[in-house]
């Protein structure tokens, strides 16, 4: 078609000009604020190397992984690992872990999420500054203790052995809430309350910082206006504080939902035992056992990938719902 002359339409020319204009604008923006972009660079690199590059390792979920052959060199097995995991010999353990992950996380949201908010509200109402600071500092402290220390302490407190009985176990026995022979650390029905309460004790104070900051950023004039209108303390909380905190609350709940399948394994591994697996084993502990203890990394990776996909869907869903009902969302 050598004789045919290609003619650009007006719209094509306009798009090209517009594209050139956009790129040029971007370039000027970068050039203008290049110092900021340089500051951003380490973070971008950090994400690229530590968050995106390792994603390549997910390939082992589809491989008969052999460390000596490497990720790419290992034999491709398709969805075989997922089938073994969900419908094969590991099915019972996997689905138990999956169910427990949801339940424990849900309990965490129901019981654990409101406590830091409540704590922040209470702290914000304390007028004695020194007292407030001391209390806040004390509430943050457990966050800085290692999980090993925390779980060691919990086990000591609730253990009811042949000769040694922890203070909490003793108190529960005295109150008649548990039987004299009950060793609650060995009973599946007590695991979740122990886990959730430990988590609240450890993290409530530290998690309240963000809510406290949100409360502090609310303009005092709003409170004054409500007072002038005759509003009481509860109405202040309802009509000023909560609406003022709403964006923070929504973002925090979306993030929390995103982590619904990402329960950390440390505390659970340190607290659980064969008696409590039925209510304690979660996906992360399952992956730890399969991937690291048994050395079946491919199966561990499949469980983790499945976990991540569900978590991703949950974040998208929560974000969408949030955008629909409150105009606040992550993106």
């Amino acid at each position: 078609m050598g004789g045919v002359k290609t003619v650009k339409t007006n719209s094509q020319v306009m798009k090209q000009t517009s594209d050139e204009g956009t790129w040029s604008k971007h370039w000027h923006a970068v050039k203008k604020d290049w110092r900021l972009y340089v500051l951003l660079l380490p973070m971008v690199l950090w994400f690229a190397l530590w968050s995106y590059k390792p994603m390549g390792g997910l390939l082992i979920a589809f491989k008969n992984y052999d460390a000596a052959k490497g990720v790419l060199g290992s034999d491709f097995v398709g969805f075989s690992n997922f089938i073994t995991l969900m419908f094969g010999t590991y099915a019972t353990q996997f689905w138990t872990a999956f169910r427990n992950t949801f339940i424990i996380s849900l309990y965490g949201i129901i019981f654990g999420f409101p406590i830091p908010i409540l704590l922040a509200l209470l702290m914000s109402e304390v007028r004695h500054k020194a007292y407030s600071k001391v209390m806040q500092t004390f509430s943050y402290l457990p966050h800085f203790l290692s999980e090993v220390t925390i779980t060691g302490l919990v086990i000591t407190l609730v253990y009811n052995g042949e000769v040694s009985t922890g203070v909490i176990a003793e108190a529960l026995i005295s109150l008649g809430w548990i039987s004299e022979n009950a060793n609650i650390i060995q009973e599946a029905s007590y695991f979740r309350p122990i886990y959730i309460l430990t988590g609240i004790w450890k993290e409530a104070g530290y998690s309240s910082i963000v809510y406290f900051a949100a409360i502090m950023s609310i303009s005092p004039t709003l409170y004054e206006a409500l007072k002038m209108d005759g509003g009481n303390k509860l109405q202040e909380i309802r009509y000023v504080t909560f609406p003022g905190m709403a964006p923070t609350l929504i973002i925090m709940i979306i993030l929390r939902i995103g982590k619904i399948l990402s329960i950390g394994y440390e505390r659970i591994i340190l607290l659980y035992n064969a008696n409590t697996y039925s209510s304690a084993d979660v996906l992360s502990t399952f992956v730890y056992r399969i991937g690291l203890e048994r050395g079946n990394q491919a199966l561990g990776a499949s469980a983790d990938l499945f976990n991540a996909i569900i978590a991703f869907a949950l974040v998208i869903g929560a974000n969408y719902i949030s955008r629909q009902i409150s105009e606040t969302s992550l993106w």
Partner: protein
Amino acid sequence: MLKKISFLLLVAALLLVGCGGLDTSESDESNSSDDEDQVETTDEVASNLKINYAIGNNQRTLTYNQSNPLELPDGTVVSSGELKPTWQHIQSEMGFSIEDVAVQDQTGEEMMEIASSTGFEDATIYGGAKGDLYNEFGSKGYFIDLGKRLDKLPNFSKYLEENPSIADSITAFDGSIYYIPYVAEIDNYARVLHGREDWVVALLDSADTLEQEDASLDVVYEGYWDRNDENVVALQNEAASGGALTQQAALDTLLNYIEETYPDLDTPSSLYLGSEAQYDIDELVALWRVMKLSPNTLSKVSTGEVVDGAIISPYFVRNSKNRWDILRMVNYFGGQRIFGSDTQTNRYYLDADGNFNYSFIEDQAIEGFDYLNQLYSEGLVHSEFADLNNTDNFRTTFYASDEYEGQKQFGFMTYDWIASTTATNEDVIAMLPPLTTLGDSDEMIHFIENTRTIKPEGWAISKQSSEEEINAALQVFDFFFSEEGNVVQNYGTPDMVADEEIFTGPDGVVYPKFGDWIIETANEFKDGDVSSFLRDFVGSQMALGYQKEIGFEYQYTVNQGFESWSVYQVADVTQPSYNTDNPILRLTPTVFSLTEQEQAQLDTTAVGENEDDQIFLYITGSENGPETAEGIKEAYMEAGIDTYIDIYKKAYGRMTGE
């Protein structure tokens, strides 16, 4: 704009992933074992040898990691970060330097995982991992075939000729030998049953020592044997009022039974004690019941006065990690084998017809777990033996703490090593195992399943090393099988061994004798635990390729230790062995060599700790465990035990040529 920048970053990151060297190792083709024949051989030895010996404990590596410096017999001082004395000695003997390149706290398995992803290039010798990993990576071409280098391993070669069963055990499926194992004192007794001698005597031989007892127990177990006219457990059950047995009823029944069944015994306690003991598991249970019901008497025997609230555990294990030792009692309900070798993970045994079986799912084992559940529910087994949240050393609590203020827990019997167990309490002595039948035979024999075997741990040489480095590594490997190297690894460097003195063991064999320095310094740094001292401070007795000698253990035997050895040696208690014609007594390998396909097939099964846990949940009567003992078998079946057994059966067949 931000969206576009984000998109670009994502693309860049993905590109990074694509080009990012995920394939960290070269194809294994370059490592095929055929290459070894083509290597130009040389007798030159490298000037430096890198060893990666990782054992998950920085105290037990080649490097001295103690905060206190150690002054050796010749006055030289070893400080933190230097090679341990044994390794400094080996270094000077070999004529080249040794470099410890291990990450000090890394386990052998972690080390292998990481080293494999970089092609085993960071060291010449890899040690501390288990043999199956050396076989796995060896067959993929990462370790040299020692079988082809036997000309450079004259001492080891001679050792294999003298011990063909060891050669068979370490040969991989492809016929190569990729590692040298740590070999314990084969055919010597290992862990045995111990008990408090004074308790048996106090309860059975004299009424004067008895205190008023108020305890009672609900009987559940009904007895197993019918070899005598009457079964003592059944008699005790009859004597129990409404199912509740008192101490008086239990003791009287047992004493009457002994008198009628064994009229020729000097004393009733002779049924249980010494090398003439002839009790079976039912008679032992009858005694345990009496003990459980005698906390006042027994606490007074051990402490000099009645301890209010004393708790007696007739049977206990050293700690909850050793919960497996409860299962060893299943042997005595008709001779069902439980562990095929000296490792808790080896449940493969040969039956009387030579068939390869997995013990935990055998009907007789399941029945045995049922009996254990009954004994546990009677309180005859320590209530916390399987509680992994409890990390206490029960042996210390139950045997070695009698004199402590407030001590309330006392134990009678455990299954453990002679030297260390008898050292805990001077009244503790080895007891013969209960009589049982075994295999097809109706003869009642004393059988102890635990014996000293080829250990799974060992070391291997990376094929990535230069020929000079390989020569240096082979020299070290062979040294441990020389006369001098054997002494160094078992007893320490020459100046730590007593000059011109020998030690004669209870078996009549002579051994090198520890010098005073070892004993004194072990007392100073390790409370007299010579074994830990040699490992943590000196660098001997390490779990790498050498033959361990029993003379070491004899020398730190105290109290009733020698008498304990004698009880077993005189009675000639039957134990498994590599060299026996009776299949049911034959030790199965500690390490199996699986092909790549078998390994992949094994990965589709879920047989593991979860299924093992069901056994302990059942024995302890947990509501989270199976409702019946059959449920244990079902859990294994669901996890794919059939496939699992088939794989190991094939591997065993390959190893034995059957």
